[in-house]
C-alpha cells in the first residue's frame, strides 16, 4: 500500500478544479485517478460552445474549457493516473484502483469524489415495444459523433428535453439528420432556456411538452416510435397516440450521480440529489471524504462545477492541514416550493459566508426566497422567474451564522 495526502477520484472538470484548489491551499501531495486515457471527463465530447462564460469570462468549447484546467493541473506537481479506475473505497480512506499496470492500493489522508454522473437508460424507463438497434442515450450518440466521427442516424426522435438532448438535436441537424420531434413528459422542459432557443427554436424543431414515447417499433433497427400525450399523472392518453417513422431514438431523460463507490464506502446519500450529504466544504458525513461536481448534484453549467470543486479542494486541504471544521453544525431543509437544498449541513460560527444551492419544484413566475433558522431570517432573494432546470444560489452572511442552533429552511412565496 502506498500513501498520498489527497486522492481525487475522477479527472473531469470537478476533479481537476478540486486538485488545483487543494494544491494552492497548501497540500502538495495530490493524486488524480481517472478511468479515461486523458483528462477532461465528459467535456471531451462536448464540442459545442457556451462553457466558461461565468467562470472564465469567455465562451469556450468543452475541450477548451477542460484544457484550461488541465494546464493548471500540469503546471502544478500533481500526479495523474490515467486509464485507471477506482474499484473500491473504504470509509478509512483506502482507495483501490485497477489499471493496465496492475492494482493500486492507496491509503489517503483525504479523498475527493468527483466521478460525475451517468445518463438514465432506456431500461429504467420501461418503454413498451421492441428493442432494436438505433436507441442511444444522448451522451452515447454524442461520443460516437464527436469523438469517433460517425453519424448514428438520419431521422431522429428525442425523448426528454435535458440539455444533452437539446444540444444533440442541434448537432444532428447540423450533420444533416432530420430531428422529427423532442418529447418531454413534463409540462415544462428541464433544459436551460438558452438551449431551447438556440438548439430547437432556431432550427424549427418541435418540442412536445407533456408527451412521451409510448412504444418502440422495429426488429433489427428502429423503424419508428409511437408518441403520445400524457395526463397530469404522466399516464398515456390513448387517443393521442401517433406514429413517427424514424431510425434513431435519443434519450435525454435525466442524469444520475454515479455514487456506487460512495455507497460502498458507507457514505450517507441524499435521496433527492442522489449524491452524498455534505456540509458547505463539501465534506460528506465520513470525515475526510469530500464530493463535488455532478457526483454530488447534477449541475446546469460546468462553471458551477468548478466553483463547487474549489470548495471541496479547499475543504480537503484544511482537513489534511488542520483537521477541518470541528464546531457545531445545523442541517438545511427544503421548505415550500423548494425541491432540495445543498449543502445539507452548515457549520456555524466559522466566520465565513455560506452559499446555499437549490432547485424549485416546478416553474414559477416572480418569487421571493426566504432563508430562516427558527424565526431568524438569514437571507432573502427575489427572482423574476424560477424553474427546476435552473439552479438557484443564495448566500448567507457569516455574521448571521454565528449563533444559530435550529435547522436552516429555504422556502419560496410567489410575489
Amino acid at each position, binding site marked *: 500500500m502506498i500513501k498520498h495526502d489527497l486522492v481525487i477520484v475522477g479527472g473531469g472538470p470537478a476533479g481537476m478544479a478540486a486538485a488545483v484548489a487543494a494544491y494552492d491551499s497548501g497540500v502538495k501531495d495530490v493524486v488524480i485517478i481517472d478511468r479515461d486515457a486523458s483528462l477532461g471527463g465528459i467535456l471531451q465530447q462536448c464540442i459545442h460552445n457556451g462553457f466558461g462564460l461565468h467562470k472564465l469570462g469567455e465562451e469556450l468549447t468543452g475541450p477548451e474549457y477542460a484544457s484550461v484546467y488541465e494546464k493548471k493541473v500540469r503546471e502544478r506537481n500533481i500526479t495523474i493516473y490515467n*486509464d485507471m*479506475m477506482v474499484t473500491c473505497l473504504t470509509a478509512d480512506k483506502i482507495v483501490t484502483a*485497477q489499471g*493496465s499496470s496492475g*492494482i493500486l492500493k492507496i491509503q489517503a489522508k483525504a479523498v475527493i469524489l468527483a466521478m460525475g454522473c451517468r445518463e438514465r437508460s432506456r431500461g429504467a424507463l420501461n418503454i*413498451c415495444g*421492441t428493442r432494436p438497434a438505433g436507441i442511444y*442515450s444522448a451522451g452515447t450518440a454524442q461520443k460516437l459523433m464527436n469523438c*469517433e466521427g460517425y453519424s448514428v442516424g438520419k431521422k431522429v426522435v428525442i425523448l426528454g428535453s435535458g440539455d444533452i438532448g437539446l444540444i444533440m438535436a442541434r448537432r444532428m441537424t447540423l450533420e444533416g439528420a432530420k430531428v422529427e420531434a423532442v418529447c418531454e413528459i413534463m409540462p415544462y422542459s428541464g433544459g436551460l432556456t438558452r438551449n431551447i432557443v438556440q438548439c430547437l427554436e432556431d432550427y424549427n424543431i418541435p418540442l412536445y411538452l407533456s408527451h412521451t414515447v409510448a412504444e418502440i417499433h422495429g426488429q*433489427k433497427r428502429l423503424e419508428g416510435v409511437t408518441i403520445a400525450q400524457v395526463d397530469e399523472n404522466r399516464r398515456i392518453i390513448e387517443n393521442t397516440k401517433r406514429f413517427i417513422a424514424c431510425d434513431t431514438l435519443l434519450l435525454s431523460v435525466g442524469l444520475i450521480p454515479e455514487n456506487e463507490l460512495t455507497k460502498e464506502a458507507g457514505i450517507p446519500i441524499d435521496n433527492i440529489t442522489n449524491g452524498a450529504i455534505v456540509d458547505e466544504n463539501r465534506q460528506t458525513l465520513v470525515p475526510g471524504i469530500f464530493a463535488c461536481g455532478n457526483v454530488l448534484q447534477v449541475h446546469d453549467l460546468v462553471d458551477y462545477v468548478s466553483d463547487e470543486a474549489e470548495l471541496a479542494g479547499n475543504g480537503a486541504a484544511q482537513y489534511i492541514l488542520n483537521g477541518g471544521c470541528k464546531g457545531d453544525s445545523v442541517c438545511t431543509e427544503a421548505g415550500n416550493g423548494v425541491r432540495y437544498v445543498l449543502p445539507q449541513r452548515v457549520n456555524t460560527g466559522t466566520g465565513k459566508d455560506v452559499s446555499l444551492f437549490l432547485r424549485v419544484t416546478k416553474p414559477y413566475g416572480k418569487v421571493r426566497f426566504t432563508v430562516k433558522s427558527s424565526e431568524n431570517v438569514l437571507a432573502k432573494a427575489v427572482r423574476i422567474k424560477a424553474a427546476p432546470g435552473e439552479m438557484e444560489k443564495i448566500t448567507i452572511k457569516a455574521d448571521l451564522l454565528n449563533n444559530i442552533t435550529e435547522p436552516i429552511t429555504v422556502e419560496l412565496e410567489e410575489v
Partner: protein
Amino acid sequence: MVYDFIIAGAGVIGGMLARELSRYNISVCILEKENDVSMGASKANSGIVHGGFDPHPGTLKAKMNVEGVDLLYQAAEDLHVPYKKNGSLVVAFSETEAEHLQMLYDRGIENKVEGMSIVSGDEARKIEPNLSEKVVSALVVPSAGIICPYELTIAAVGNAMDNGAELKRNFEISEIIKEDDIFVINSSAKEQVKGRFFINCAGAFSDKIAELAGDGFFKIIPRAGEYLLLDKSEGIRVSHTIFQVPNENGKGILVSPTVDNNLLTGPTAAKVDTPDDKNITQKGIDTVIEYAKKSVPSVDFRQVITSFTGVRSSETTGDFIIKASEKVQGLIHVAAIDSPGLSSCVSIAKYVTGIIKENCNIELELKKDWNGSRENPHAFRNMSDEEKSEYIKLHPEYGKIVCRCEKVSEGEIRDAIRRNPIALDIDGVKRRTRSGMGRCQGGFCMPNVMKILAEENGAELQAVTKKGNGSEQLTGRL
C-alpha cells in the same frame, strides 16, 4: 461434406445435445438462424433449476426434470457456468392455495424430489424476512437453484465446438429435402448443408421445421413472458426464488435473485401470434409489478434496469415432445421444451442419445480425447486483488476496465470475441462478459465495445451490429 448429425437450433437444448454428441467420433453441425447462439427462449427465461414437484408424475417433464437437476449442476461445474443452489419457496396466500401446496408436495414425493417441507407463514418469513405478511404457508424446495441460462447455452455450444462440432450462424432453414437417405438442408440465403440424421431442436420454430421435414404433426403455441430486471441494490430482497401457486398459465410471477446478484421478476404468460413477438407491453409491466409485490411488497421498482420478453414453446399436450419421427427415418424431434426445459437440458441430451442409439444406424464410439470442461470465462473476475495484479502485469489488457458498471476489462471482452462460440455483435459481447448489462445499460461502454469488435474482426466500426445484419448502430461517417 455430409455430416453425421445436423442439429437445428443453437438454444440450450441444441447446444447441450451437441455437447453430448461431441463425446463420440461423429460429425455434428448446428444450424442457427440468428447471429449468435441462445437467441430464443434460452436467452430470456427465469434461469431457474426447478426442484421437480410441478410436472405430473409419469410425464416426460417429471422424468427429465428430476433426473436432470444434478446432471445440470455437474455440467455447470464442468463448464464454469455460474449457478447457485439457493432453494425455492412456493408461497400460498389462502387456505385454498395452501391445500394446493400439499398437492404439490405430494406430487414432488411421487416424483422423488428430496428435502421438501411445508412451513407456516411465520416460518417462511423467518427464512425470507421480506415476504408478504399475507403469506399463510410455503413449500420449501432446497434442491431448486438459479443458473445463467444464456451462459449455459454459450458454454455448451462452445464446449461442443472445442470438441469438434461446427456451428453455422445466420442459417435460416428454408427447405429440407431427403435425397437417398441424406437430409439436404437449404437456407434462405441459398446455403446448403447435408447430413445423415437431423435433430429438430428449433424451439419456438420446431413445428415449422417439423413441417419442412415432412412430419408436421404438432403445433407450437408461443406464449410470451415479460420480465423486469432490477439493479443489484434490489438483489438482496430475497435469497430464495419465490414462486406463487402455479395455475394453468404456468408457474406464475416469481421474485428471484439472479446468479449475478440482480433481482428478477416475472414472467407473465400471454399467447402471441408468432414467436418473434417479443414486445414489452404496459399490461405486462403492470402485471409483473402487481404480482411481484404481492409476494415481496418491498421490491423497489424504480430500480428496474431493463425489461425483456421471452417466448415459451408450449404445446397442447403439455408435455415435451422427444421422439424419433414416425414418418421420416433419421429425423428426431426435441420440441415443445418449455419449463422445466432448462432444468432438464442435460437429461434431455442423454435421453436423445438413447433414442439415437435405438433408431439411428450409426455407431457411437467415444472419443479418447473428449474434454467436457471449458476454460473459465470468469477466471479473472473471480481473482483476488493480489492475483489480479499479478495477472495484469503479464496481460495488461485485463487492467483496463471498459464496462465500468460491471467492471469488465478489455482482456475479458477480447476473450469473448476469440473463444468458441465467438461473439460477433454487441449483444453477444454483453451476454458473455456482462459488459453493458449494468446500470447504465451500455451508455458508456458501447462505443468502446464497438471499437474492440471492429478491431478483432478487422472490420470498419460501421459494420458492427447490435444483433446481426440489419442492426447496425452507425449510419455513416461524418
